[in-house]
């Protein structure tokens, strides 16, 4: 097959640099059938890189995680900031009763609406750190960074990972005269609602992701880091001080963890075609490999990418997202099969997260 001619042999890095497509193809299509196809990075086509997850490494963030996926390293820090409802434009006041009704009614849409309406989750991804040669440091966010931020943002909302209940800060007025008549004269200006708790502020979670090194598959690494960091997040317990109109926290040690629903895990593969310059019509006959967890070289050579996000924390497999674009090779059957691969990936990520906690 397409191996370098012996008369003019290059070293592996030179071959990879000069003609990356034949380099990967030569590696994948071994001439004798005894040796299994392997990628240039030594992995089998359906072999992924193990996750290494380490949480609570940042001292000043409320939650943080460092995730390594081969040579892709991403740091995620979650920081909560208090947003008083008076500074929200178009704020619609909700009483405790309303909110409880909504939460009990299982009306996901409205809880999600709260997070979305007031932008309580703010993910941002920074790639311009010199993490890979193609990202120059100190430039405005590239298309890839913006795209990743959008995907993380929309997946955070569509998976409902954060419970809006955890982000609400209530003011419980002192129950001055509970067992007597409700219409006692009350000297604070709360009128007739004085006894009812009031929603005074929200926590806004700033989720910042920084790629320390970049070797392909940024979305899987980023998403795992977001989930690990959110699971690690502990917000201080605050109470609302009505006199100062401020949320105050009593002690640094009094913290409460967020309730993170489920464990959505994303799994990405890229499709590598045998003929680099195939005309569209030949695409059917073109031999292809599905490369699980592609690295940087493979990502540059592959057009078609599929990402599936699954969650098995409730026993059965629920798909949270499917994204397939950039080609026509992956059809219905391949996506169905890929869900099976994603399930295995889910187990691996669950183990990696459990290992970190122990």
């Amino acid at each position, binding site marked *: 097959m397409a191996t370098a001619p012996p008369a003019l042999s290059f070293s592996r890095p030179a071959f990879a640099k000069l003609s990356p497509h034949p380099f990967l193809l030569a590696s994948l299509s071994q001439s004798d059938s005894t040796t299994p196809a392997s990628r240039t990075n030594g992995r089998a086509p359906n072999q992924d890189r193990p996750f290494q997850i380490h949480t609570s490494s940042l001292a000043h963030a409320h939650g943080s995680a460092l995730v390594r996926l081969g040579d892709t390293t991403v740091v995620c820090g979650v920081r909560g900031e208090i947003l008083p409802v008076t500074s929200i434009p*178009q704020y*619609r006041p909700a009483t405790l009763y309303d909110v409880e009704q909504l939460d009990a009614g299982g*009306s*996901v*849409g409205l809880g999600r*609406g709260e997070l*979305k*309406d007031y*932008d309580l989750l703010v993910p941002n991804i920074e790639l311009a750190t010199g993490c890979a040669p193609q990202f120059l440091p100190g430039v405005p966010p590239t*298309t890839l960074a*913006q*795209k990743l*931020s*959008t*995907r993380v*943002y*929309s*997946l955070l*909302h*569509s*998976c409902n990972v954060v419970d809006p209940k955890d982000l609400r800060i209530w003011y419980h007025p002192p129950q001055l005269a509970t067992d007597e008549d409700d219409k006692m004269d009350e000297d604070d200006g709360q009128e007739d609602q004085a006894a009812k708790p009031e929603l005074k502020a929200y926590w806004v979670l700033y989720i910042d992701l920084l790629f320390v090194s970049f070797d392909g598959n940024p979305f899987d690494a980023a998403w795992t880091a977001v989930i690990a960091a959110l699971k690690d997040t502990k917000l201080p317990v605050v109470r609302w001080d009505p006199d100062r109109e401020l949320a105050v926290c009593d002690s640094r040690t009094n913290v409460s963890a967020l309730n993170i629903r489920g464990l959505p895990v994303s799994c990405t593969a890229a499709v590598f075609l045998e003929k680099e*310059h195939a*005309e*569209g*019509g030949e695409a059917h006959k073109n031999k292809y490999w599905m490369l699980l967890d592609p690295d940087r070289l493979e990502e540059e050579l592959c*057009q078609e990418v599929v990402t599936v996000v699954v969650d098995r924390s409730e026993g*059965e*497999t*629920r*798909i*949270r*997202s*499917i*994204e*397939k*674009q*950039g*080609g*026509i090779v*992956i*059809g*219905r059957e391949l*996506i*169905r099969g890929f*869900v099976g691969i994603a399930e295995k990936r889910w187990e691996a990520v669950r183990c990696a997260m459990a290992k970190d906690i122990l």
Partner: protein
Amino acid sequence: MTANTAPEAALGVLPKADGSAKYSHAGYTITASVNGPLEAQRKDEHPNEAHVDVIVRPAAGVGATRERHLESVLQSSLSQIILVKNFPRGLIQIVLQIEETPENDYVNTKLVQASVNFPIMPALFQTCILALLSAAVPMRATATASVVAIVLEGEKKKTVVDPTPKQLQTAQSVHVLAFTSHDELLLAESEGDFTVQEWDEIYETAKGICCRPQTRKSGAEMVLDEADVAGQADMRQFIRSTMEGKVAADLHWK
């Protein structure tokens, strides 16, 4: 609320662009212009193929991360069906202006939304294809897209084509699928909470809209009847009849 109206389209609406189209369906109105092949900028130049540049302009405000994401999805799909190898070092530029979006009866409508807006994708897709056809850009196939949602109605799950903004708020899952005219799956984007079986049903529904088998041999009336029976638009037939109308109008003088 938007009624499930039939799509409407006009070709060649912009006099100066190489090709243009205006498309409206399910409350969205989009105008697209296509220019190309042009000379590519140095940074976008590719020695073997043309660069496809997609620019999405929102109805209000300036484009942000959401538009970048939509652009990259469209760009990766369209460069698969345009014969980019025919124009090495060239550029095909597609500019999409969103003119109207459906009224949202929910109170807190934000002007700029960062989230991916699934329902707009099919409209953008169809407009792109029509504009590319209008500009006579050589393509391997045409493509059509549709958006389908699974909505809970009481206890039962219901599949809704072209969901309204209200339905989207409460939908269990939302899916966008695009198929080429060779019935290949070109784009699949889904989010929400669903199973493989549900996705299969969605796939069938979307395929029914995007690639209904041609029944032209049995006469044009048959096509109309069938579309009425199914109660859903037949996107491929729509693109075809729009083009036929345009060609007939252009050749009217003969």
